[in-house]
């Protein structure tokens, strides 16, 4: 169960990256496609809105004509007139008449008139009735040309024509506005008349739609009156789409909706009840791009996952396959754990990008809008600053302090001088009106022609309104001017005035409107604006003092909209990333604040276009353009407090760049994470595997016999115990190894072979040849020598025996005091006398040579009991026991009885003596502990006689 759960978890983990990557790609694709679709839909909506706007003919002509005329000069106008213009005129969705007036630049100064379009009245100008006036104009114009003053002629001609046209318009049954008038060069003048009135609205729409000239986008309209659709040229190439849309339009569905058909995005606008039509537009969607990397990446991941899955499942359930070391597995596993959340995140990454980019974009757009608003507000602040400065002047004394001139009594001149000095920041539109009580009012204003302040004596009914108002106010404040001197004729004057004032009040009230009227009636310095079609003024009224007595009413009047200086110019900038511009101008006149317009057009063509559009329609216009790496958000809006158009753009990296940057950032983090995770895992794995490895290494060392090897036990974890145990084991093994030499080879063999079985109880009857070698006179030696000396002797004995055993076979069974017992075990009943004799001889000779000790050796052979004997739990011994052993010992004793020691063998071994040895039977029949007779033979070397007994 646990296994299945784990397998399930693992397989989730394994296939998770594939799935999430696939989903992430899919998601990104969807987002991209929907973004494209949205953009297309947006374009369509914008287009539809523009279509639905009753196209201001003036805007249309302005924007198109300007573009068209940009390159027309005095040289190439003929080709323009013959080719481009007729084409253009055909496209204009309303009747226009265009006249090109070309003045011959040669001396004669004759004019040529080129007329295009419908006849709207320019020819009437030349009709009999007006011929006279027209010719008068031309004649006078020619006269001036001849005099050589071309610029004056130009302005004259312009004004004259303008006037003429204006009048012409009035002569018509319906007005024909002049749409456009402009000097193209020194000698070409263009103007365009239009007549929209004769056009039926629907026909207008139909024409406009039909001549819609974007090739990447089609628009159409369904006209209710005509019960038909009009399609733009775009649809000519797609009849299927056309019929599809036509089919859709039969249903009278309300509301706007959009749909997709055969790779086109189609948008239908709501039915327009005023125009009785319904617009629609279609744009082909770009084919959804399928990224090649998608399939590849997913496939690679899939293959990796499948391979891993196969491997893991095989390992898991069947136990097959290669085992990896923990050192690799741990980091891999770590990586696996780390990667799951990382891949979990990838599924969301596209969403993240799109939403954060959208937020970023909107934020930038909002910032831009706020910044433009702030500019607008700052222009208001500047204006309020000016108002505050004006409020400062409360009396002649205040003015005197400022202008350093004493009031002389001549109001007009005094104020004139003051204003000349004051002239705040070139705030040209300001004029000042002083309405003294009981005297004539004066007004100063700036004469633009001479750039000088002029004085005007004002005596109109409006001023009496001020005076009455002042009387009322002063009376209320208890500051009434004492005019008792005038009491005599005061009453009649007053009555006379009252009539005038009645009229003045009426005019005043109607002129300024009731709101301003009542504000004017407030006793504290009222401020109000005065906005009408023909007047756009701002007033500040102040009660004005002289010598602490109310002297006059001071009226600051300034015209809004003519001042340029009140614009916060320091906010304008040309930074390419976020330019801020302001455009100003009137209906057909467009220029830039501070900067030169042609330069701007060159530098920020789109932004200027947007600004111009906003200028024409006096409304917020925004736009977005994409460059290779940036998205530029543009906005232009008319100011609320300034007559200018504020325009600006902010750029931010475009979506691919944003994605690239953010994914690079995120990728770095993820990479860092994965790497650091891997590193951590690696280190952790090392932490775990290094001691394991050390341990393995150690076991291997021990395996090859290096029992002295020890492991480090300074561990903070289980490895301490393991190490301790291991070291204990190694020590034991080391001991065991040492012990091996303390026991006979057959013991070692027995133990190694026995395996798990118990070693004891393995006794058997075996034939063995036993050699006992003892040192002659050991007891005496022992008594007379130190332990070290004794042991040195014993050591020599053992070494000698060992060397002999090695040379001739057999094994040292044990040492009993000074006696070395050597055993040859053999299966057959054939004693190995030869080697035994050689061993004995070797021992005897070596001992003689090395220690000068005489050796007595007894050799016997026979059936013995061989095996392990002793206490099973405590002490064991592997040995041979039996009569032959005892006899051998006795024989050794017998040998020691000989003077020289020597080798004594049992009688029955005589026949087995090797070449060169002879046996001499000793006269001993009985041996201690033996009931039977024993034949003991002393072995001698035959060829060197006497050697044995020597």
């Amino acid at each position, binding site marked *: 169960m646990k296994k299945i759960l784990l397998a399930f978890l693992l397989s989730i983990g394994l296939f998770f990256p594939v799935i999430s990557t696939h989903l992430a790609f899919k998601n990104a694709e969807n987002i991209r496609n929907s973004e494209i679709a949205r953009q297309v839909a947006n374009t369509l909506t914008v287009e539809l809105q523009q279509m639905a706007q009753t196209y201001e003919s003036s805007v249309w002509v302005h924007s198109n004509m300007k573009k068209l005329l940009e390159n027309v000069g005095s040289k190439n106008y003929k080709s323009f007139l013959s080719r481009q213009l007729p084409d253009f005129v055909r496209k204009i969705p309303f009747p226009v008449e265009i006249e090109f007036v070309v003045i011959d630049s040669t001396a004669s100064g004759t004019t040529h008139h080129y007329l295009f379009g419908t006849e709207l009245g320019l020819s009437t100008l030349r009709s009999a009735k007006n011929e006279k006036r027209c010719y008068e104009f031309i004649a006078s114009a020619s006269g001036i040309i001849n005099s050589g003053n071309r610029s004056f002629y130009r302005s004259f001609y312009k004004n004259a024509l303008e006037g003429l046209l204006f009048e012409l318009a009035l002569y018509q049954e319906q007005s024909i506005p002049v749409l456009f008038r402009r000097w193209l060069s020194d000698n070409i003048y263009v103007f365009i008349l239009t007549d929209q009135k004769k056009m039926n609205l629907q026909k207008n729409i139909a024409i406009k739609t039909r001549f819609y000239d974007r090739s990447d986008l089609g628009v159409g309209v369904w006209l209710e009156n005509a019960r038909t659709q009009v399609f733009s040229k775009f649809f000519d190439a797609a009849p299927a789409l056309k019929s599809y849309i036509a089919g859709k339009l039969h249903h009278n569905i309300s509301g706007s909706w959009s749909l997709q058909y055969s790779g086109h995005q189609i948008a239908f606008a709501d039915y327009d009840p005023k125009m009785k039509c319904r617009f629609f537009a279609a744009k082909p969607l770009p084919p959804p791009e399928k990224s090649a990397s998608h399939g590849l990446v997913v496939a690679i991941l899939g293959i990796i996952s499948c391979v891993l899955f196969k491997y893991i499942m095989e390992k898991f359930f069947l136990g097959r396959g290669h085992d990896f070391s923990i050192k690799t597995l741990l980091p891999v596993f770590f990586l696996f754990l780390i990667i799951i959340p990382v891949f979990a995140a990838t599924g969301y990454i596209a969403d993240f990008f799109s939403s954060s980019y959208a937020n970023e974009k909107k934020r930038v757009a909002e910032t831009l809008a706020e910044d433009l608003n702030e500019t607008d507000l700052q222009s208001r602040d500047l204006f309020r600053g000016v108002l505050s400065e004006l409020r400062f002047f409360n009396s002649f004394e205040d003015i005197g302090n400022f202008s350093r001139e004493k009031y002389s009594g001549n109001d007009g001149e005094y104020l004139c001088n003051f204003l000349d000095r004051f002239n705040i920041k070139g705030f040209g539109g300001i004029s000042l009106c002083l309405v003294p009580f009981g005297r004539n009012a004066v007004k100063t204003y700036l004469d633009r022609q001479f750039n000088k302040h002029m004085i005007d004596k004002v005596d109109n009914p409006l001023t009496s309104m001020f005076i009455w108002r002042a009387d009322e106010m002063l009376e209320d404040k208890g500051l009434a001017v004492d005019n008792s001197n005038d009491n005599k004729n005061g009453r009649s004057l007053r009555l006379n005035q009252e009539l005038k004032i009645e009229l003045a009040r009426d005019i005043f009230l109607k002129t300024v409107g009731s709101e301003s009227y009542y504000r004017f*009636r407030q006793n504290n310095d009222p401020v109000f604006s005065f906005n009408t079609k023909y007047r756009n003024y701002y007033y500040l009224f102040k009660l004005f003092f002289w010598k602490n007595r109310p002297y006059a009413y001071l009226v600051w009047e300034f015209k809004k909209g003519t001042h340029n200086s009140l614009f916060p110019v320091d906010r304008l900038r040309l930074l390419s990333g976020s330019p801020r511009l302001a455009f100003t101008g009137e209906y057909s006149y467009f220029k830039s604040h501070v900067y030169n317009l042609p330069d701007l057009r060159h530098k920020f063509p789109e932004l200027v276009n947007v600004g111009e559009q906003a200028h024409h329609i006096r409304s917020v216009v925004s736009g977005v353009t994409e460059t290779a790496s940036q998205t530029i958000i543009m906005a232009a809006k008319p100011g609320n407090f300034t007559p200018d158009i504020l325009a600006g753009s902010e750029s931010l990296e475009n979506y691919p760049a944003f994605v690239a940057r953010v994914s690079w950032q995120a990728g770095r983090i993820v990479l860092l994470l994965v790497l650091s995770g891997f590193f951590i895992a690696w280190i952790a794995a090392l932490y775990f595997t290094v001691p394991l490895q050390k341990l393995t290494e150690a076991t291997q060392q021990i395996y090859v016999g290096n029992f002295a090897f020890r492991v480090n036990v300074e561990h903070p974890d289980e490895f301490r115990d393991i190490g301790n145990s291991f070291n204990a084991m190694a020590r034991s093994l080391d001991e065991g190894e040492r012990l091996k030499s303390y026991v006979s080879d057959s013991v070692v063999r027995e133990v190694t072979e026995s395996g798990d079985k118990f070693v004891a109880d393995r006794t058997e009857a075996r034939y063995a040849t036993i050699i006992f070698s003892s040192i002659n006179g050991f007891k005496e030696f022992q008594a007379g020598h130190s332990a070290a000396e004794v042991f040195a002797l014993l050591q020599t004995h053992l070494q000698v025996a060992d060397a002999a055993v090695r040379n001739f076979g057999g094994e040292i069974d044990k040492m009993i005091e000074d006696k070395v017992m050597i055993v040859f075990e053999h299966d057959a009943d054939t004693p190995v006398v030869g080697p035994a004799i050689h061993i004995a001889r070797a021992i005897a000779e070596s001992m003689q040579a090395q220690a000068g000790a005489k050796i007595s050796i007894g050799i016997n052979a026979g059936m013995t009991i061989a095996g392990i004997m002793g206490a099973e739990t405590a002490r064991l011994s592997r040995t041979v026991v039996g009569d032959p052993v005892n006899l051998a010992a006795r024989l050794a004793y017998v040998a020691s009885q000989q003077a020289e020691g020597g080798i004594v063998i049992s009688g029955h071994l005589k026949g087995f003596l090797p070449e060169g040895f002879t046996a001499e039977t000793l006269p001993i029949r009985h041996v201690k502990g033996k009931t039977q007779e024993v034949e003991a033979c002393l072995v001698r070397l035959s060829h060197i006689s006497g050697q044995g007994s020597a």
Partner: protein
Amino acid sequence: MKQSRKIFAFLFPLLLFLLLFFVIAEMHSMLLREKRLEQQRSLQKRLQTIMSRIQTNFSLNLQIENHFSKIVEKLSSSPSSADVKTDVFAGLYSDGLPEDLKRNCRLWFFSGTSERFAAAENAIFCSNKTGLMARAFTSLVKLARPDVTESEIGQHSRFLAGVFGENSAPWYLASERRGRLTPVIFEKHQHYLYWEKFGGANGCTSGFMAIFPGGLIENDRHALFRLASMISRENKDLFPVFICSKNLNRLYPPVLCRQAEQVVEVWQAARIGINRFYRNIASLKPRTLQSINDSWFYYDSIADETPYFALLFLRKHGEESDRGFMLPGILVGIIYLWSAFFWLRLADGGFKLEFAFRLLFFMTAMLPVLLLAFFGVRLIDQLHEANIRTRVQEGFARLELINKKSEDMISISSRLVEERFNDNQLHDLLLSESQNENRQGFDLLAAKLRQIDVSLGYLLLMRPGRHSQYFADSYRNSLLARHHLDYSSASCYSMHSKLTSEFPDARQLLLSSGQKVIFDSFKRSDRQMSALFRESLQTPGYFGESASENLLNYSFVVGREDWPVAYITLGFNLDAAAIRLLIKEFSDVSISADDLYIGLHDINGGRKILIDDADRRIISSEKGRCFLDFIKSSSIYKYQLEVRNENEIFIYEPLMKMQSMSAGAMLGIVDIRKNRELKLMWLAILLSILTGMIYLLAAWVSETMIEPTRELSAVFSDISAGNFSRTFSYSYGNELGILADATNLMGIGLRQRQILGKFVSRTFDQDVMTGSDRTEAQELYGVILFSDIRSFTTISESHPPEITSQMLNNHLQAMVTEIQNCKGQIEQFIGDAIVAFFPGSDSRVCLNAIEAAAAMIEKHRAIIAERASRALFSYEIGIGLEYGLVMAGTLKSGSRSEFSVVGPARTRAEEYEGASKTARFTRIIVGEALIKNLVGSPYIFCRHADSCYELQSLEKSA
């Protein structure tokens, strides 16, 4: 080097923890930063709202108007609105108007029919001049009626002018100043009048007039002071300061509220702020949140009408400053805890690997999970934000669309008007000499326009050679028409005379005296004069102050035979159409969602009419009132505004294309918020699943890879304790597998060692264990015990070896046990003989040896008896004991080593054993040396031979 793993084990989790900690801290601080930014933004919004409140309430008349309009609103929303009771109004009035204003207010409440009103009596109403005021109120009500006749106008205007002064413009006072504070001369002094009526359209039943002294209303500083006090009363942490630029200080001293000094820190910041403001205003950016001395500072100018700036000072709420202090604290705490835990564990036998790895795995894998969590939260926030922004943008887009539609409406309407106007029959009627026919023409046009939702207000007819005329649909419009006509005539006159200057016989327009005055007043700027008419030829536009009238003007020139014979200006009203359009648009968008769209029509500069759909349910709720307040306070604002609440967003759009209209929407964002919460929940679930999964996998990994170490450890300790049957089974071929194999091999080796150990004397075993290769002999004192089986040779001869060896093994086993019981060491087996050694030089050792020998004999007897019972052969043993010096040592020779104990004691012991053959009692022969060394023995010995004794009895003597 040896400690390196410890250090590592100590540091590594700490490092990992630090990493995690910093990741979390970084995320947290990032979120905090964003939150702080968000807070600042909302703070700025809040200050902006307060600022707009200041801007709409900076003068006392605005404040009073607001108070009264609230009272009126409450009255009209109460169920008894048709018939307002005196006491209800009195209650609302005394609650609604602040005390200081009430003191200065004289208020009369009237009720009655539309023909006649009488002042009501109540303690808080003014009781003076009730008759006069009742009449004045009646006059106002009558003048305000749409069907007022001209004679009535004269009568009532004269009366009102008598009461409120000649310049009070009674007709406007009645028609436009209802609900507005209007300056009048009352009792020969400047006063301000507010009047309002309640009731249905046909007959109003009640109303009131309030009069305030002019000096109070016009005292702007007092108004600002009131405002400042009110604001700082409502916002404890904030107070406004009103100051001018420095050079205006003499005329307009600063205004501060009394509460200002109470908030000390803000007050100090304010002093600094004011100083900076005076010194250099350019250094302070208006309308942005700025920090001065632990306070926020925000300022803006108030209005054109006042030179004052409003400076807002807001106390900073000391947040998140202590967080910086907490971080190291947590860190140090964690380090301490970890250290304590680590050392405790270490002292307690070590730190569990498995635990460590689980922790490690988990912590490492949580790193990306945390990042994922962070990323997820960010994503959800971003989506949330994007959704909200999209909704807001949609809202704005709708409002903008409405705005745009209204513009379309103007241009389309004008075109439609023109289409209707181009009608010869109409022209004939209008150009007719008969006034009646002209009037018919007007009516005809009005009827035609009514079809297209346009109400024709007036028509101005200016014909050369005649006086200009006007036709209007109502008296109100006729006044406007007359006013417009005066200007229009002057304008047409100027234009026509210019046009016809070449034609001396042309007829000119005739001007009335008033028109002449206007013409004279403006003739200096005659270009403008003629433009007045000319421009309305091209585009529809407004005449006069835009806010006061909503009549669009559009002009035509009617020509006959190429002469202009008539100049006609139409004044038509699109308001009805516009409002209908707005209502339609609003209800279209409002029906579907929780969103509510309403519009506000600002008429006459101050009064606001609410445009909404019929359902006032939402508007009357708390939320709706909030929304309304927002719209109303925003209406002076000329930009889009947006305020975000928890459940809804208020947006405001000034409909710039529509005259004096603005609109707002309340957009519900509950679904977006819910969506966000749902997403957060999903994220939490995902994360917990992920965490669980990671934990499970980590546990599994540590189980398969780390857990075996514990088993390994157990196996190791078992083996080293001697349990060799224990093997380590591990099925994978990795490091552990190799180790397992190696370990199992070692187990075998160890077993061998254990067995081998048994072949070697214990005395020397120690040497082997200590590993010292001592070659020189040791001299030791002790007792040597030598035991042998009598005539073993004979026995082995006469019995088969199996039997012999079995006997021998049994014997040895028994003897070894006895010897070992008495602390003797088996030195050697020599065939059937046992050589044992009892190390030590005191008598205790000797006694032990003797006891061992006695035990051996006893044991032997028992064995013999037992053997006898099984009919096995018996055997005899003998034991020899001697105390003395022995030489013990290791003898080495290449591959073969041997222990040896030699010495006289051993030899003697062997001899004594041999002598035991002749023993009489116990066959235990003890050497003399031993007897000598034996002190106070409980055993009895008897002399056996030279220098040896025999143990007389196995029993200890008592």
